[in-house]
């Protein structure tokens, strides 16, 4: 007789060895399985909701971008201001992501491999930027470095431009993406403990060798996962950079800001063309993220459970 296995219910149980040895008892099905009409209703509403709020907006981006044909689409992307925006976005991400990578690794090393007072306070502070509105993330740097900011007049006297210039864009981006990598690494390295590192050090490895040969191979997929999410946010950030950018075409416009300018000029096709590149970036990020989760799910488990 076939054992009734409700796959949806038992995927969790299959992972534990206990399940493999003991056979599931026969079940009172009425209480465990949703009636067919409930299944259809819940799936129908759920899928409609996802269609309406996720799939349609995504389709709209590409449809609007290609409305006037591929030729216009490509022209919109290769126009000098668009190219400048793409270049600036890449530059900002190329500074912000490595900076947060170094910070994330340092923070995770200090927090998970050592004990010191004030650790939970430090963890809370690292999470701070997640709970701050993007506009406020930009605002704080204007308050510091803007024309009427704390250091505004000093900066002006020395001819240093931060707000309405590239350094401001980098700072605001670093702020909003600050916790991403640390947040992936800390739970992962916490779960791995410090036995392996202690063994390596005891056997005579230096701190750096231990990190490179022992820790890094253990955390590489988690690290990549964090970098992926951090990069997506860094390239797509809008609110924070909008406040510090000053919207100078070809100079301080990142891709999302360029989308806004084009849209407000009713140049919809060009706006959606640039937007489609960002949407593509989001899709690639999702695909890579899912691949990492499926392939290295066990190694990322500590991260995903949060």
């Amino acid at each position, binding site marked *: 007789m076939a054992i009734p296995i409700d796959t949806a219910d038992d995927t969790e149980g299959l992972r534990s060895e206990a399940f493999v040895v003991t056979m599931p008892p026969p079940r009172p*099905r009425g209480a465990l399985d949703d009636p067919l009409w409930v299944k259809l209703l819940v799936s129908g509403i759920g899928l409609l909701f996802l269609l309406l709020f996720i799939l349609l907006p995504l389709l709209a981006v590409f449809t609007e971008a290609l409305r006037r044909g591929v030729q216009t689409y490509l022209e919109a992307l290769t126009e000098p201001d668009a190219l400048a925006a793409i270049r600036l976005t890449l530059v900002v991400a190329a500074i912000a992501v490595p900076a947060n990578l170094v910070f994330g690794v340092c923070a995770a090393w200090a927090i998970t491999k050592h004990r010191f007072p004030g650790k939970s306070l430090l963890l809370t502070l690292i999470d701070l930027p997640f709970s701050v509105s993007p506009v406020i993330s930009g605002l704080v740097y204007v308050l510091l470095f*803007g024309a009427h900011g704390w250091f505004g007049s000093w900066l002006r006297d020395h001819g240093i431009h931060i707000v309405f210039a590239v350094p401001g864009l980098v700072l605001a981006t670093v702020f909003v993406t600050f916790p991403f990598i640390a947040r992936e690494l800390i739970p992962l390295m916490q779960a791995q403990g410090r036995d392996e590192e202690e063994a390596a050090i005891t056997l005579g490895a230096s701190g750096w060798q231990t990190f490179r040969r022992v820790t890094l191979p253990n955390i590489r997929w988690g690290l990549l996962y964090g970098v992926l999410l951090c990069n997506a946010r860094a390239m797509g950030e809008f609110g924070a950079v909008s406040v510090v950018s000053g919207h100078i075409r070809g100079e301080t416009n990142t891709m999302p800001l360029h989308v806004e300018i084009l849209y407000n000029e009713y140049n919809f096709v060009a706006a959606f063309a640039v937007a489609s590149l960002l949407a593509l970036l989001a899709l690639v990020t*999702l695909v890579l*993220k899912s691949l990492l989760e499926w392939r290295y799910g066990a190694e990322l488990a500590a991260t995903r459970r949060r």
Partner: protein
Amino acid sequence: MAGRLTILPAWLRPERTVIPGLGLTLGVTVTYLTLIVLLPLAALALRPAELGLGGIWDAVTQPRVLAALRLSFGAALLGAGINAVFGLMVAWMLVRYDFPLKRVIDAIVDLPFALPTAVAGIALTSLYAPNGWVGQLLDPLGIKVAFTPLGVIVATTFIGLPFVVRTVQPVLEDLESELEEAAGSLGANRWETFSRVIFPLILPALLTGTALAFARAVGEYGSIIFIAGNMPMVSEIAPLLIVIKLEQFDYAGAAAIGLTMLVASFLILLMVNLLQRWSRRWSGE
């Protein structure tokens, strides 16, 4: 280098481990945190002080500011509420049912995390504008979404969507089927099993996810400003008002609104932490 902080009193001294690098890594962490996060936030906390307490109160209680705060918090709350209902259904569907393309649909739930907010903003606007794919269906019914407060709710629903699904999903997956079996063999029907056994167990996660969606939506800017129409007193959100004040060089006024929002989101975050502690006790971890 080995983190020998001997100047510190004994109770503050770190516990000894053979692993080196505490001094270096903690030094980098604290310096970077201070420069990038703490110092700028200190400016936000101190800047409104130049207005005086009365000045801050006046800046925040102007009718236009109050209307914007009410819209930001109200639309965020409604969006989070919509996500609580439909997000639970999506999570249930993804955990309990089998259907084609399930993995793809599961993955695409995270899109609002990954899609830049400006892109989401213009996409939602083009959908819900009177001549858009969805807007033209609603227009004959007299429902206007784009350029009204309703549009703001659509945007807050969009960006909050993954929070509820991703918080409820793991809890549903970990639910022990023995509980449901017990309920079933004691004579409960499916609805009773759900409402009396399952729902109370996932309620803390559901509330946490809803609160996270709310907190994110309160400060949201990019996906809202395109669809909102930004009419003062009607469809103008608080973050936009901060931008407007900055453009008028009213730094202190902008900082006062920013500080109000920040304090509010800290209170929400505190609530989320309490909820999570409660849910951890609930699940007996």
